[in-house]
Structures are given as structure tokens and as C-alpha cells.
């Protein structure tokens, strides 16, 4: 019950936040969220929610998806709200990719925006060719992102911790500089991206729902929601599978994992490629939605934005990722009211959150091998 209540409440809150225009509304909503969280902890409501979640996760996940679709349909007419929802969802998908890499396996990736951008650029280049079906382009985006990460495999597998970080940082800077000095891919000026087309369904046109005029972003919001659900399900499966177990083992102690016969190398390669695939797919859809991309959108600081979603949400925690993606995407947008002061405030907010919740907003719990069985305490 408590779990369902939270899901419904969150959906309603999301609607209110998206609709909030005036300063006092935004500030009020933020204060409300803060107070509700504190109240939930003081009254022990949080523990009940957690228990509900442990008991009936599949049902609650389905409910959350239904609430999301409901939210999208309620907002079917407002372009901007749908654009924000789609952006949050795509960043969330990207953060799942990163979570496989460093939430599970402990592989640091500071070039998230580069792989995300590789997907978007693939969409731009392939979209210009009329012959290739756009749904295939999404997959191609993922595959290209995976392919450009191949040269990094050797250094990534051999290095650990901060040393791995510098490899990806270097790659991120390299990727962006390369796009900028190179005219082939539009140079610093960027490229147009064709919109998504399914057979008989052009995403450029607004769908007509029962004679009710909607936004063309509805297409993307629904598609992003579907993709998010798919990747989320995959993520959960992976976590429960033996591969996920291997990944956890590699993160916690490489030497011990190797002693138990887990191939550290294979596990790392798998996590790195799979994560980049997901990043590329979400990047491709993002490119199609934004319809224009340039190197300036895929910089080191955009990679950091992705990393901060993962860390704010809590390592390896997909639900934390949802909350964090909402904060990271929506908050700077809502802080537009503050104009030039907004980044200062945003960075201070993140620092405060991390000081008071060092494990992230919704930390990942220990593995639960019997999801439907009641655990002790």
C-alpha cells in the first residue's frame, strides 16, 4: 500500500513540478519535497515503503510505468513538459548504461557524453540516408558507440580506479576536439538530425488522439518511456543474473573474484560494451528528438552531468537514477528564474545533498535473492 501511494504521489508531484511556472510555486514545491522526505523518515514511513517494494516489486514497477504513461497522456498537449519528460527519460536510460559500468562493475566512465554523442551523430549521418529504417538507426547508434569504445578496451581492462578515469576523460576531450576540428561531421556548427519514423507513423507530425490536438513530442515521450521500461527490465534481469553477480564480485574485490574463477577481463569488457551500447541508443533517440546536434552538446561537463545522475541517485540504484535524472535535468530548467545565478545554486544544492546523503538519494540495497520472500527485519 505504502509503495503504491509513493508511486502515485510521485507522479502527481512530477505533474505539479512540470506545470509550475511562478517562482513561489517552484520554491514551494521544492520545500514540500524536502519536508515530505523528512516527515517520511521521522514517522518510519520509509521503512514501510521499502518493505512493500521488496515484497511486490514487479507489481509496483508496472504501476510506476502506468503512472508515467498516464502523466504523459495528461500532458499530451503541452510541448515543453513532454520535451522535459523525454529528456529526463533519455538521461535516465543513459544513466542505466553508466550504472552497469560503475554501479555494478566499478568501471569509471567519464566519457558518457562522448558515447551518448556517438549515438546522436550516428542518427544524424544515417538519418540523412533515406533507405535505412529509423528503428534500425537506434540500434546502429548503440553499435557505433560500442565500436568506438573498442580501442579503449585494452587500457580500460588493464587499469583500475582513478587510472581508468583518466583514460575516459582523455577520450571524452579527444572525441569533442576531433568533432570540432573536423569538417566531415559538420564541424563545430553541428548537424541536422532527421526525426524518427516508424512505418506509417512520422514522429514529426503530432498524433491526433480522439480528435484532440497533441504535441509531436508525445511520440518521443511515449517511445522514450517504452525504451526506458525495456532497458529497466533488462537492467533488473542483469542484476539478478550470474553476470550481475560476477560484476558485483569484480567491483568489490578483483583479486577475490579472480580466485573464484570469474574472468575479470571478460566481465569488465562486457560491462563496458553493454553500458556504451545503452548510452548510444539513448543518444540516438535524443539526437532525433532535439533534431540538431553540435559538439558543444557533448562536452566533458555533460559527461559529468551523467556521472552526477548516477552518484546522486546512488550507485547501482535504478530508482535513484529516476529521481536524480529528474533533479539534474529539471532543476536547472526550473532555476532559469535565477538566470545567471542558476549554476551556482545548482552546484551548491548537489554538494548539500551529497554531504547529508553520501550514499546517494536512494542507495542500492544488498542483493535480494528471493524477491518474493519476506526478509527478516
Amino acid at each position: 500500500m505504502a509503495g503504491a501511494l509513493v508511486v502515485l504521489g510521485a507522479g502527481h508531484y512530477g505533474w505539479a513540478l512540470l506545470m509550475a511556472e511562478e517562482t513561489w510555486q517552484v520554491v514551494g514545491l521544492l520545500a514540500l519535497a524536502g519536508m515530505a522526505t523528512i516527515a517520511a523518515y521521522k514517522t518510519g514511513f520509509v521503512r514501510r515503503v521499502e518493505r512493500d517494494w521488496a515484497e511486490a516489486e514487479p507489481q509496483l514497477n508496472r504501476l510506476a510505468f502506468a503512472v508515467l504513461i498516464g502523466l504523459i497522456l495528461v500532458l499530451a498537449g503541452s510541448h515543453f513538459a513532454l520535451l522535459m519528460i523525454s529528456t529526463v527519460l533519455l538521461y535516465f536510460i543513459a544513466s542505466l548504461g553508466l550504472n552497469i559500468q560503475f554501479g555494478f562493475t566499478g568501471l569509471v566512465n567519464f566519457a558518457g557524453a562522448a558515447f551518448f554523442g556517438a549515438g546522436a551523430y550516428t542518427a544524424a549521418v544515417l538519418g540523412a540516408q533515406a533507405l535505412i529504417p529509423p528503428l534500425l538507426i537506434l540500434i546502429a547508434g548503440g553499435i557505433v558507440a560500442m565500436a568506438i569504445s573498442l580501442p579503449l578496451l585494452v587500457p580500460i581492462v588493464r587499469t583500475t580506479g582513478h587510472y581508468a578515469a583518466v583514460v575516459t576523460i582523455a577520450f571524452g576531450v579527444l572525441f569533442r576536439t576531433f568533432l570540432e576540428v573536423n569538417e566531415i561531421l559538420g564541424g563545430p556548427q553541428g548537424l541536422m538530425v532527421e526525426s524518427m519514423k516508424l512505418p506509417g507513423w512520422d514522429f514529426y507530425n503530432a498524433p491526433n488522439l480522439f480528435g484532440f490536438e497533441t504535441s509531436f513530442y508525445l511520440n518521443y515521450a511515449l517511445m522514450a518511456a517504452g525504451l526506458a521500461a525495456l532497458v529497466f527490465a533488462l537492467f533488473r534481469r542483469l542484476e539478478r543474473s550470474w553476470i550481475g553477480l560476477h560484476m558485483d564480485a569484480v567491483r568489490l574485490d578483483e583479486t577475490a573474484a579472480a580466485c573464484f574463477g570469474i574472468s575479470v577481463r571478460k566481465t569488465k569488457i562486457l560491462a563496458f560494451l553493454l553500458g556504451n551500447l545503452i548510452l548510444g541508443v539513448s543518444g540516438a533517440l535524443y539526437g532525433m528528438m532535439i533534431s540538431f546536434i553540435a559538439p558543444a552538446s557533448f562536452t566533458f561537463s555533460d559527461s559529468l552531468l551523467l556521472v552526477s545522475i548516477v552518484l546522486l541517485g546512488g550507485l547501482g540504484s535504478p530508482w535513484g537514477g529516476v529521481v536524480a535524472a529528474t533533479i539534474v535535468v529539471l532543476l536547472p530548467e526550473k532555476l532559469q528564474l535565477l538566470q545567471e545565478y542558476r549554476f551556482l545554486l545548482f552546484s551548491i544544492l548537489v554538494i548539500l545533498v551529497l554531504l547529508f546523503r553520501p550514499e546517494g538519494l536512494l542507495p542500492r540495497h544488498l542483493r535480494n535473492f528471493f524477491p518474493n520472500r519476506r526478509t527478516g527485519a
Partner: protein
Amino acid sequence: MDFGLIAQYLANGILLGTMYALVAVGFTLFFGVLDVIKFSHGDVLMLGTFIGFTAWLGLEAVGVTNPWLQLAGVLLCSLAGTALIGAAIANWLILPLKRAPQLNTLLITLMLGTAIREAVRLFYPNGSNPKAFPALLPDASVEIGSFALRADSVILVVSGLALIGALNLVINRTRLGLAIRAVAQDEETARTMGINYTLVVLATFAIGSGVAAFAGIMNGLYYNEINFGMGLILGLIGFSAAIVGGLGNLYGAILGGFLFAGLQVVGSALLPFASAYKDVFAFAVVIALMAWKPTGLIPERSSDRV
């Protein structure tokens, strides 16, 4: 290529290398004692340079015009101020997060860097524009063919290297250095031996930040221009240099700093009319080096506890 050109490249490379090494030393020190990466290092450096600049404005205002006196004042204010800031960051932002995942420290310091940068941009008078940093060093130069060796460059390189040398002495020859090394090796044992852990950590952060401020002032004196974004790229390069050289090792930081400067200079000298590719080149080499030497050119002496 004639002698003058080569000499010019060499002189530039050495100066850049010294600057990068000074920044990298900070990263390596922090990593040594706490196993953390403090990403706001570059922005703290920028803040230090602005403190120095403000000190110079103050000295001008009260009528001190002797350049050497001004230089002393600028360095004193900047180094002391930045050291204090570094210690404060360690005390309130980094030590409290000691038990949290390492990456959190990274994120929190990244955000702190953004906050510092934005704050300087917004609240320093006219902070979004570059400032003219005074040339306080003698600008005499010796012409050797087509190459002009400038006195200020020489002074900057010599004093930068001297600072690194002094730091090395502090780490290896003093009681404080002994304590820092002890903490770096094993925190718990160091505590039981009666070392004031918190104090040592704070001292290390103060020293590292002070050294970075020196690099910032050096940057200002050499380019005669400072701006709120100068720390970002210096921090990134310093970090890469520290990693490539091998963390937790002063020599590694120095090696990494000079290596990176060398790569940049070689990249722009040997890739004619495509100097835009020099960063692509430098970072590609960094990736290749990491594949070859996964723990840096001078690896940490450590073994995994099994």
C-alpha cells in the same frame, strides 16, 4: 627547422611543464594521504590567483610600487589564502565524506569547482571578463639568433623547480613529511603511533593548494592575463599528468607534467597547419600510455592484500 625555432619550442615546453608539474604535485599529495581525487584543484588555483591579483590592486592603492615588494605581497597573500581555503575544503567537504564511496568526493569537489568558478564570475567585480595581471618580473631578454630568452621565463622556471625541490625536501626530510608519508602508507598504524591524523591531512591540503596558487601566480605573471575559467583546463591537464606519471609519487607528477607539455608542443610543431589537433594528439598518447603502463610511468609501490 632552424635553431631559434627549436629553442623557442623547448623554452615554452619547459615553462609549461613546470606549471603542469606544480598542479600535478597537488593531486598526487592529496591522493597520497587520503586516496581521493580533488577535482576542484584547478578552480582553487584560479581563486588563489584572483586573491593575488586583489592583493596587487590593494598594494597599488596604498602606494607600494616597488615590483619586488609587490611580488612578495602578492605571493604571500595568495599562498596563505589558498592554503587556508584548501584546508577548509578538506575539513568541511572531504574528511566528512571519508566513509562514503570514493566517487562522491570526486563529484562533490567537481561541484565545488563549478561553484567557485561561478562565484568568481558573478561576484568578483566584472568577473566574467579577463583581467590584466601585472608584469612584476624584469622583462630583459637575451637574443640568441632568432630566439629571445626572457629573464622572466627563466626566473619563473627556476623558482618553480626550486619550489618542487623544497617540497621534496619537506616530504622526505622533515617530521611533517614523515607524518605525511606515514599516513599515506597506513592510516591506522599512523594513528596508533600518535600522529594527529586530521592535522596531517589538513596540512597536506594546505601545502598542495599553496603550491597550486604558486602555479596560478606563475601563470598570471607569464601570460599577464587571468580569467575565471583558467583553472578548468589547468586542473584537467594537471590531473592527467599526475595519473600518467603515477599517483602518490612526486617524481611521477613532475615527469607527467613535462611529458604532457612536451606532447602539446611536439603536437603543434610536428603537425603543421593542423595545430588544432594537438590536444587530440596529446590525449591519444595519454590513452596509449595508460594501456602500456596501467599504473603510470612510475608505478606505486604497493601490493594487493589478498
